[in-house]
């Protein structure tokens, strides 16, 4: 059991997962399944963004769904109303979410813990209200139609589900790769230091504000990327994209998968999206299960699937190690713990 499990930690496991994702459209029973998987991947990208600010940097951002909607609306409005083609509008969406993320960040990140969470909750709601009420710009409750699909430069047609699936997959792989690099870099460790203690981090000479804003901008850009892809995929969006429930959904995905881990956001999102899909009747009442699930997770498994798995692996490897080595391991526990949260 332990040997099988330890295989899951090797890089080979990640390549296997990638291979499965590449082959998925070939083994899928129908196009709808490919579509569902692509949706799950889009959400996963957004959840990776939430993981940067909430998982690594420790700041609960409740405006994340709002930034997702800003990304979707920027792309939608630029292509549908202003005649931009997809890729320039796509870049526009990224720039828009980054700039707005920066502006919101420099105000909101002066606040700590609860104040930050409450402030971002309000920011998320302001975004929703603006989208809903500012009819001259956003068409209000009617929503945005006729959003352009990605332009394939004459090579591929992204209006088909399968090519779009590969496009989303490519962005997802990039997002995970970037996350992995980030977590091993000095910047990622700086974020973790901030999560573990504001004051301690500051005493080490870390500029809190600059690093928190950077984490926030990175996270909103991830959300904008996901939102723009979402708009290009469904090609019709409305104010509901900014509903606070999307943020709550993403928190659930992140927590189930494992907050602050590399593979957690993907596992949590894909897992829950498929569970919800296979239990269609759950769609409306899924929160009767997911609400208590959130509570149970934070009480008993605050580190989610991936985090709990890594902790279990770590304990096992200590138990298997010879006694002498175990002594060393004890000394290294603190280091290992940090390594785990990077894994």
């Amino acid at each position: 059991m332990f040997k099988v499990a330890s295989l899951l930690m090797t890089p080979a496991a990640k390549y296997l997962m990638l291979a499965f994702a590449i082959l998925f459209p070939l083994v899928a029973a129908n196009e709808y399944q490919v579509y569902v998987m692509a949706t799950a991947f889009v959400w996963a990208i957004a959840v990776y963004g939430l993981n940067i600010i909430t998982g690594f940097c420790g700041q609960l951002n409740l405006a994340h769904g709002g930034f997702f909607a800003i990304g979707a609306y920027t792309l939608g409005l630029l292509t549908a109303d202003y005649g931009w083609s997809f890729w320039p509008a796509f870049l526009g969406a990224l720039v828009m979410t980054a700039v707005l993320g920066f502006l919101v960040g420099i105000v909101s990140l002066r606040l700590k813990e609860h104040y930050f969470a409450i402030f971002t909750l309000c920011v998320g709601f302001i975004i929703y209200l603006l989208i809903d009420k500012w009819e001259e710009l956003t068409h209000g409750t009617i929503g945005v139609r006729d959003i352009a699909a990605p332009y394939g430069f004459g090579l591929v047609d992204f209006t088909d589900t399968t090519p779009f699936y590969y496009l989303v997959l490519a962005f997802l792989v990039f997002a995970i790769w970037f996350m992995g690099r980030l977590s091993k870099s000095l910047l990622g460790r700086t974020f973790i230091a901030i999560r573990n203690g504001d004051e301690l981090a500051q005493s080490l000479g870390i500029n809190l504000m600059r690093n928190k804003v950077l984490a926030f901008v990175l996270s909103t850009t991830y959300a904008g990327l996901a939102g723009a892809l979402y708009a290009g995929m469904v090609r019709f969006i409305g104010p509901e994209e900014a509903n606070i429930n999307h943020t709550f959904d993403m928190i659930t995905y992140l927590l189930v998968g494992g907050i602050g881990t590399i593979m957690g956001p993907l596992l949590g999102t894909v897992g829950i999206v498929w569970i919800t899909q296979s239990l269609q009747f759950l769609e409306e009442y899924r929160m009767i299960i997911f609400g208590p699930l959130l509570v149970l997770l934070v009480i008993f498994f605050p580190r989610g699937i991936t985090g709990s798995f890594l902790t279990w692996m770590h304990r096992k490897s200590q138990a298997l190690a010879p006694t002498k080595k175990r002594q060393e391991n004890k000394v290294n526990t603190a280091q290992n713990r940090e390594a785990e949260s990077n894994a």
Partner: protein
Amino acid sequence: MSLFLQQIINGLTLGSIYGLVALGLTLVYGILHIPNFAHGALYMVGAFMSYFFMVDLGAHYWIAMAGSAAVVAVLAILCERLVFHPLRHSPPIHDKIAAIGILLFLEAVVQMFWGSDFRRMSSPFTGIMNFDGLIIPEQRLLIIAGAFVLVVALQLFLRKTMTGATIIAMAQSREGAFLVGIDANRVAMMTFAISGMLAAFAATLYAPINLVYPAMGHLVIMKAFVIIILGGMGSVPGAIAGGMIIGFAEALGGFYISTSYKDIIAFGLLVLILSVRPQGLFAKGAH
């Protein structure tokens, strides 16, 4: 002039409701330092319980209000026992996520039983009072008077009774309260019960001039958060003053500026104030 007075009355009504909800929120924050995101869901359950007692069981308005307060108080105690108590040593982010879990659960349950339709709840106070051209519906008067009575009763309870004093003591200093033998569990449960009751009272008072639906708590809870940040988190007078500020800002802003953006006023105020004073308007020192 009478239009202006009319807006003053509206501001007072809104301020009373917001103040009551914010009071419950601030009490819980003062004791446990939890921003209870589920408080809006308790408010919503309070409205649905009153609706259930009145429409389905045919109870009188006052009895429905008492019944709803009792149910929500029990629910709030359960939240404390089953969720927040086990999490008391966890990092603060876990409390917040758990509170969101409760919120999602309660909303889904209510939606399962009653659907997401908007419902109207009647009250026996449908008359209208006319003070020399100034028209005040009885229900609005009842809201203002009811909020006043509840706030005075709460103040008397907190200041004049031994049980109430334990809540104040715990909010002032946790260690100090333990030192003189105050039972933390009892105080936490009591605070949650009071906070739930206040939410149920506010919901039952406000429901007849508003609508009852599963998402009704969203806006109210966010405004209550704005209020307790304005008034200083954990401060009882701050919650009442903050409630009135937001109530008046909304009533006057909605009338003189724009009705469709009136909900943004509270949040705009918050953004503005926190940009200038990150510690809130009345808060002392660092948080």
